[in-house]
């Protein structure tokens, strides 16, 4: 490419670069900076990761909730996406509409809706009691169960969409070929369809897990202070205990753990391929 032309292109992307620098890179650097300077310069904040049992517990909760949420969401998302790929055009349009519908509702409204459904006098408990299935109301909310229900509900479209888009690229003829060569429906699925839908499964898993790690509103509302995950604790540190050093340290750690999980996955799969960049 001609050198002067290249300069023109650099100028054309300059506004975007500037925007990133001012609104994204600069605050990020500041977060990192505070984490090693407040209250005193050094790695004191980070030593809490090792020393403080509370932070251990919060991290363990976060990881446990994220892993369970991711597992359930990806399996459920796979089933929904598989169904969408098999049904007729009309049903598919409706299913897609229902999947996307939750995107258009505020996350707050969805969390509160789950609280209404799951609380002690909520629809589910009263319903089960009136049916005589239970004597005492079940504890469905303000615990990990409630948090996971709410998170799975929120994350489901994020799993369905990449899996479904991958499935639309799988030739139905390959499954027919497997059947014709003597494979039972299950074997044809397990040996042909499932391996071919792996890229969609992996991108859905990454997407859901990374989103879950930093999730705030749903765990905060459905956990009701009982299930404290990292992002909620960051908020508490920032706004209530005013320990900015600790808050920024946790935020930075969260960011690193996202990078770490991506790096781990990248060891086994070609991420560029999974996310369609190649």
């Amino acid at each position: 490419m001609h050198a002067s032309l290249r300069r023109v292109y650099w100028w054309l992307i300059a506004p975007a670069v500037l925007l990133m620098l001012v609104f994204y890179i600069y605050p990020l650097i500041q977060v990192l900076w505070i984490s090693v300077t407040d209250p005193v310069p050094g790695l004191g904040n980070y030593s809490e990761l090792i020393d403080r049992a509370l932070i251990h517990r919060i991290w363990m909760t976060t990881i446990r909730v994220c892993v369970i949420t991711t597992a359930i969401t990806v399996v459920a998302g796979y089933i929904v996406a598989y169904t969408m790929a098999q049904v007729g055009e009309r049903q598919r349009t409706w299913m897609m509409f229902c999947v996307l519908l939750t995107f258009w509702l505020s996350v707050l409204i969805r969390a509160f809706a789950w609280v209404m459904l799951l609380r002690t006098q909520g629809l589910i408990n009263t319903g089960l009691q009136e049916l005589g299935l239970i004597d005492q109301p079940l504890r469905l909310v303000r615990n990990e169960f409630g948090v996971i229900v709410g998170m799975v509900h929120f994350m489901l479209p994020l799993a369905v969409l990449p899996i479904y888009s991958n499935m639309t690229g799988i030739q139905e003829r390959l499954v027919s070929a497997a059947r014709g060569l003597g494979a039972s429906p299950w074997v044809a699925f397990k040996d042909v369809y499932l391996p071919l839908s792996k890229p969609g499964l992996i991108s859905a898993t990454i997407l859901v897990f990374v989103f879950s790690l930093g999730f705030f509103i749903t765990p905060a509302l459905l956990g009701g202070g009982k299930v404290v995950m990292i992002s909620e604790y960051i908020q508490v540190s920032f706004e209530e205990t005013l320990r900015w050093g600790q808050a920024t340290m946790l935020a930075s750690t969260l960011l690193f753990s996202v990078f770490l999980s991506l790096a781990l996955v990248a060891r086994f799969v070609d991420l560029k391929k999974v996310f369609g960049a190649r």
Partner: protein
Amino acid sequence: MPEGSTGARSGHALSLRNLSKVYGSLAAVDGVDLDVPRGSFLTLLGPSGSGKTTILMSIAGFVEPSGGSILLDDTDITRFPPDKRNFGMVFQGYALFPHMTVADNIWFPLKVRGVSKADASAKIKNALELVQMGHLAERYPSQLSGGQQQRVALARAIVFEPDLLLLDEPLSALDKKLRADLQWELKSLHQRLGTTFIYVTHDQEEALSMSDTIIILRDGKIEQQGVPGELYEKPATRFVADFLGKSNFLEGTVGEVKDGAFTYVCGGQPLVQAGAAKHTKMSGQVLIALRPEKIALTTERPAATNAVSGQITAFNYYGSAYHFQVKTEALGDLIATTPAWTCAIEPSIGNTIWLGWEPDASVVVRDR
């Protein structure tokens, strides 16, 4: 498998009894009766929408017939699922598993029958060698050319010694030269295996070159069936004469009938046709099909029984042959072909030439 086989395998016979498949109000297959002899190479030939693929998919078990039955050596398999039929199938576009190597693709039908890869290795190797692909066993399908993929698909379809081999337009995606090569290979493979082949195509050349029997389908029904030569020489209808090869159609009024021949008048020109005046309409009209290569082209009036003169309006040169379009006074536009190296006329537009043919060169066909 071929090497070391006793040669006792004679293939299986398949019969369709009044087979039909209805989609909504449209009958894709409409009461087809068909017997596929043991070990034969049978081709279902027809334009798109003629029902040939639906018939093949019914035999394979991917399409459930609306009526009728499918028998394999007297066993009714109409309701069998595809994986219980033990048929090999080569799909249009090959349908190789992209996440498996060539060897694993070929192992697949053995694997689902409970054969370990170690036990299958000799068969995999044999099948690959049969299609001359032994050196590419560890490649992935995406690393192969179209012709190579086609060979792998074939090897995969025959490695488990299926009762029948079903082929759905296997050569349609290949270029002309490769297609011609693979026609030879398929035919010789058929001879070596002895397996019954059922082949679907819309390409009349493939059908003629490989088949023992051709079934010509039209609108879900069998239009005509027979050995290739018989179908080409004695097409029963205008459709067959036009679809299998090319034909000129002469429509005339029957005149005198005598001595196994009759005269007819076409555009004022009296002509003679061998055989009986079949399929005449109420008005006495008869339809004659005349193959372009059976017309002799000369500069002078020929001694042939039927002769008309005309002007060349267009011609194509194919190296081995000339194809001419000739405008005649009485018969309208005719096409005629002749080997290029024995071409007796000057190929130039506007040139007046004579077309001649004998009464037995053309055939009477039904106008449908």
